[in-house]
């Protein structure tokens, strides 16, 4: 039982650190730039992806013995687009102000290579519990990356942080009144932010592995 638990934990951590969708695999980049100009949008987008990823993994894993291997891809797409529609309708109902801004990108979760890849590579071959752990790890890794990017962009760009305190309420924390580097919240700034953060990740990674070697 204990070895089983460590396995689940490893699966969970794998998605957050080792195979982080954005920083390591460089997949699903579109929303990482499009919606991260304020912290709140980033958080909700990340939660939507987390939900879809876990539910898709769960559904595929439950149906894995019924799906014929020859028609598996269309069925995966159908399951994914079904869950995306569910997410879209829920967000339109409960968080309409966020939905107005990120709606198009929610619909485009369907085309995320990372979700299809996890369904194909993992959920269609494994039991329900490991599949959910894998989905949870992948989703949280994505959420984490979105939070880091939007935190960085909003703080540097506008010196504020929009923190959601409930579904419709937010608290805006202001560091100072000026806007230090407005370019970071503009469209072009998103590319700069992701580039710089990716380089930072590479740098930390290189330093860390060098240390591990010298020991």
């Amino acid at each position, binding site marked *: 039982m204990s070895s089983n638990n460590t396995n689940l934990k490893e699966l969970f951590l794998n998605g957050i650190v080792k195979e982080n969708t954005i920083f390591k695999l*460089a*997949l*699903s*980049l*579109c*929303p990482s*730039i*499009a919606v991260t100009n304020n912290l709140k949008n980033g958080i909700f987008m990340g939660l939507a992806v987390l939900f879809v990823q876990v539910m898709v993994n769960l559904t595929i894993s439950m149906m894995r013995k019924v799906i014929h291997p020859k028609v598996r891809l*269309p069925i995966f*797409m*159908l399951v994914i*687009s*079904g869950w*995306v*529609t569910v997410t*879209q*309708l829920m967000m339109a109902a409960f968080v309409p102000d966020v939905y107005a801004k990120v709606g*198009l990108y929610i*619909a*485009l979760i*369907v*085309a995320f*290579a990372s979700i*299809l890849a996890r369904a194909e590579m993992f959920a269609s071959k494994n039991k329900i519990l490991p599949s959910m752990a894998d989905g949870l790890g992948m989703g949280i890794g994505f959420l984490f990356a979105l939070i880091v990017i939007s935190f960085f962009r909003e703080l540097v760009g506008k010196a504020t942080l929009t923190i959601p305190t409930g579904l419709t309420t937010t608290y805006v924390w202001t560091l100072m009144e000026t806007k230090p580097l407005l*370019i970071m919240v*503009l*469209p*072009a*700034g*998103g*590319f*700069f932010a*992701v*580039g*710089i953060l*990716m*380089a*930072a990740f*590479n*740098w930390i990674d*290189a330093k860390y592995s060098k240390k591990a070697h010298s020991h």
Partner: protein
Amino acid sequence: MSNEFTKLFELIISASLINNFVFTRFLGLCIFFGVSKKMETAVGMSITFTSVMMISAAISWVIFTQVLVPLQITFLEIIVFIGIIAGLVQVSDTIMRKVSPGLYYKLGIYLALISTNCIILAVPLVSAGEKYTFIQSLAFGLGSGLGFALALIIMASIREKIELAEVPAPFKGLPMAFIITGLIALAFTGFSGLITL
């Protein structure tokens, strides 16, 4: 009549330059960074993309206005559009293999990549949202395709040069590509306000 032509022309210009999918709407980035390493693949990808985009815009317009709207099931648009695109890709794959094996050999691999690309899905979604007419959605598809082609070709020509440049170690590869894209995107913001639709 001429007024309508001007409108269509404006739509193409706005879809390709002002609201360029890559630089101002941030779609199709995976493919954009994936295939922009070499000029040759970039050109092949652009041709395949533009044609598939126009055809899928046309088919999904017909299905959306003739089937989904009368039956009041527009909330199923995502499922239907992704089905149309996957089917279309499969059909053109088969036709191309039989009719012109040479072209298939050159462009076939890009076709497979298309079904998981967000731009192709975004074109019908946006034109359904904006309630474009048939001709307008065709023009929108063409404009978006041209815009994507332009972005890919600019990026590929820059990346071929940057291969030879000395880049700080942590920035090698993708991070540098992101910074370059940011610079091009800055240049593209100059187009905003060129035409007000």
